[in-house]
């Protein structure tokens, strides 16, 4: 439960209010192993602690996180510079089911900041692991200027089928203008073999699920990351309880089949 002290090795401002940091522990030994879809609790001294997903798998004893200013704590984290320290607990949670990817038609669907927890997946695929039959990445954002990892996305698009779509842009933007459900709806999907990894604002995920189900994709083939507020991250406090699940330890990645009854309840 005690945070370890980490230092910021590098910091990149993705766009105003959102940065990506690489952090490594002050003590020897390196960071603990983590998998795509897991998260750490990052502690900004004097401000508080928040869950932030792994947004890259370094394999060199460091963690990569992308942080967007939301409120008090994320603002304090965003303010940190290279060389500054922060507290880290983790990694926590169940990540993306990479063991299911081999031989499948993988659809990675990201909306806004939801690209962060999916980036390690794409990086792993680019490195040749998991061996899906095919990969399509759908990435929706507000504006071209608010797309994460722009240079990398450009690189990915040379190796994978990448569809980017933004809500607003001028026509100089080479991607699509509109909402992500449209290219997703138009995609050719092999419903027997499809596997979907989905992350974004909940309302965006809800609409994407509607599109996927209408196409005939099975509920058990859809996995999504639920980013509900949490405190302890180890299933003790009940802050993130969602139906019978604790987002922190049973998730944040869930199979849609297992959470469908809770996903559709408005007050939850």
């Amino acid at each position, binding site marked *: 439960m005690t945070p370890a002290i980490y230092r910021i090795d590098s910091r990149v401002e993705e766009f105003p209010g959102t940065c990506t940091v690489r952090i490594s522990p002050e003590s020897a030994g390196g960071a603990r192993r983590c998998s795509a879809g897991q998260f750490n609790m990052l502690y900004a001294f004097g401000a508080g602690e928040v869950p932030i997903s792994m947004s890259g798998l370094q394999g060199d004893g460091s963690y990569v996180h992308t942080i967007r200013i939301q409120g008090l704590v994320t603002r304090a984290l965003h303010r940190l510079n290279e060389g500054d320290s922060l507290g880290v607990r983790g990694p926590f949670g169940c990540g993306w089911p990479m063991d299911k990817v081999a031989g499948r038609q993988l659809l990675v669907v990201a909306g806004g900041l939801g690209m962060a927890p999916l980036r390690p997946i794409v990086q792993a695929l680019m490195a040749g692991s998991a061996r899906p039959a095919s990969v399509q990445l759908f990435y929706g954002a507000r504006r071209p200027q608010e797309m994460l990892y722009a240079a990398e996305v450009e690189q990915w698009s040379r190796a994978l089928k990448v569809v980017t779509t933004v809500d607003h842009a001028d026509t100089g933007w080479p991607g699509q203008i509109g909402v992500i*459900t449209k290219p997703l709806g138009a995609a050719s999907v092999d419903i027997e073999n499809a596997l979907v990894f989905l992350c*974004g604002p909940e309302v965006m995920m809800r609409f994407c699920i509607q599109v996927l189900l209408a196409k005939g994709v099975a509920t058990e083939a859809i996995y999504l990351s639920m980013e509900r507020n949490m405190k302890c991250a180890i299933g003790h406090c009940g802050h993130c309880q969602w139906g019978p699940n604790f987002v922190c330890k049973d998730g944040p990645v869930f199979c849609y089949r297992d959470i469908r009854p809770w996903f559709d309840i408005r007050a939850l």
Partner: protein
Amino acid sequence: MRGIQQLLQQHALFQDLPEADLTLIGGCGENCVYNAGEYIARENAPADFFYVIREGRVAVETYMPNHGALCLQTLHDGDIFGWSWLFPPYRWTFDARALEKVRAVRLDGKCLRQKCEEDPRLGFELMKRFARIVTERLQATRLQLLDVYSSERPRTAETRQ
């Protein structure tokens, strides 16, 4: 003509239409090509056609004084552009501009609308199919308006002031 009919047959909009309907609709169609920058439709001009985009990107735009053209959405391979031919006053409500070389099937809506008046069964069938496209676009527009990727909560009537 046969080629156009075959093209239409493969499109979801025309799926499972009786052969005779397809022949009739195909008879109202022709292949066309627009170069980058060319307008396919202009706001307020008579909407006598609709288009099945076979290849290329089309921007649906509106003009804002002191700002210029504002792109509302882009359309792509397989998309349908245009439903104004089906509803009075039969005028385009937006501009449509080719962003790159666009190949499309242009269908004569004016002629089809006459056929629909004469044959209500065909009219209803087409109306249902176009209503679906309109609904999908409306839903997409609503989602776009929700501004879901913003870090701020959606604004309500109370918070908007």
